[in-house]
């Protein structure tokens, strides 16, 4: 958004804009809640400050905290794929490696680089790859020897990443640069989750690219150990609207519970994320 750009655009379609807008100042003042004509006159300066804030300043402490949470998760995911792709005991079909897993691994590494650049001196140092426990305290002892378990853990980590970014969105409210960057990573994590899920599907798992919950269980991965990673995904009421009561695709139908839960991904709080990834050796203090 650029105020002078907006005014230029307005004048292109409305050459009498200046004349037109002047007699309407009282109306605008009342409408926007700006207290006086002075406030209206000061609007360009206020906007300018807003842009400076958005593009130039050091992030607030809250934004830094959120970006470092994201960086922790990206370090962890990058190390997971790097280690898994190099694991001698893990038999990965060449096509899966080339088409799905190597690209995901490269993306996670790129996200690390991006977040480190944005955070600059505030970036947390990278933990060593060996500092993690990818078995999560022996919950997944075969993560790097059983390919289907590896994929199930990968799916869980991607879905958890999507949920974690989503849960931080409120901290970044109206932060044009940081929110937009976080959203642009968030949707890539969702692309990853979808691709890993589809890969599992092609290997015979009853899994869709989207998270299908039941009334009582968010988790659809068939790994009961990760129920917590999907807690709350079974929500079917959004902003007081019961999605299952809405009209469905065919006459007289309503949206199924499966579709209602698939159609909305749910967030995780910071506390939930910390609890979920701590067993993997991700450190928050």
């Amino acid at each position: 958004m650029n105020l002078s750009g907006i005014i230029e655009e307005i004048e292109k379609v409305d050459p009498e804009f200046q004349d037109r807008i002047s007699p309407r100042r009282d109306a605008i003042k009342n409408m926007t809640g700006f207290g006086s004509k002075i406030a209206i006159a000061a609007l360009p300066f206020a906007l300018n400050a807003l842009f400076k804030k958005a593009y130039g300043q050091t992030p607030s402490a809250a934004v830094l905290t959120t970006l470092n949470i994201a960086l922790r998760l990206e370090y962890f995911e990058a190390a997971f794929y790097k280690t898994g792709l190099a694991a001698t005991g893990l038999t990965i079909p060449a096509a899966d490696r080339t088409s799905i897993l190597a690209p995901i691994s490269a993306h996670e590494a790129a996200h690390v680089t991006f977040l480190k650049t944005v955070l600059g001196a505030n970036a947390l140092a990278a933990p060593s790859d060996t500092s993690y426990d990818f078995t999560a305290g022996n919950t997944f002892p075969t993560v790097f020897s059983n390919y289907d378990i590896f994929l199930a853990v990968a799916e869980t980590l991607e879905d958890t990443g999507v949920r974690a970014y989503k849960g931080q969105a409120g901290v970044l409210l109206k932060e044009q640069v940081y929110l937009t960057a976080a959203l642009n990573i968030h949707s890539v994590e969702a692309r990853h989750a979808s691709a890993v899920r589809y890969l599992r599907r092609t290997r015979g798992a009853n899994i869709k690219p989207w998270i299908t919950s039941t009334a009582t269980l968010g988790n659809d991965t068939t790994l009961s150990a990760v129920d917590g990673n999907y807690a709350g995904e079974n929500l079917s009421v959004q902003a007081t609207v019961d999605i299952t009561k809405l009209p469905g695709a065919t006459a007289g139908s309503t949206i199924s519970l499966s579709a209602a839960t698939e159609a909305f991904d749910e967030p995780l709080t910071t506390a939930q994320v910390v609890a979920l990834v701590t067993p993997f050796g991700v450190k928050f203090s």
Partner: protein
Amino acid sequence: MKTLLDTATNANMARRSFLRYAGVGAAAATGVLAMASCSKHHDDVNLNNTIDIGTGDIGILNYAYALEQLEAAFYLQVALTPYSGITVQETSLLTDIRDHEVGHREFFKAALSANAIVGLTPDFSSIDFSNRTKVLAAAQAFEDTGVSAYNGAGYLIQNVDYLLLAGKIVSVEARHAAYIRNLVSYGSFADNTILDTNAMDKQQTIAQVLTIANTYLKTKVSASAFNYIP
């Protein structure tokens, strides 16, 4: 407000000025939700025979509603007239996507209630629904555009609950996009034709997205408060 504008000699032009200026206010003012009421019944506003999404958060929600209407209509047509050679797997998952998009559409309609824009009439005459390649290419474009639209509009949202709702939906659109892309070309779920060099999606502005969306709509959508009139 409405009364004042209705008495103007050139009500349409006055509204246009109001909407554009209100958009500027929306970016700077914290009290934007107070302005939301101004957008009520804004679909009365007729800019070059377009449907305007309105101002503030209501405008953004209507923007999403417009895109979900378009996506729902597309997948309803796909399900109604499946392309030749469609597999059982594809039918199953494309039907899922249809139901998600209908769910999104109906959710926005219910949540916006009286503030919702009217139902839009799609124009899919450029899409050959019998041809798998054409249908999946269109689906991919709709999904990728949807992701870029939500990502690009997120920062404009003032209410944290609405931002979270947009976040809940955009990741599902990204799941769709990745699935469709893998159907079109396996491994293209997040390739460098759609991501930037940081492996991030690329947001688009409301004007960029509506320019694309309007090519598939008989009823054109405008976003005068967000600097776009077709």
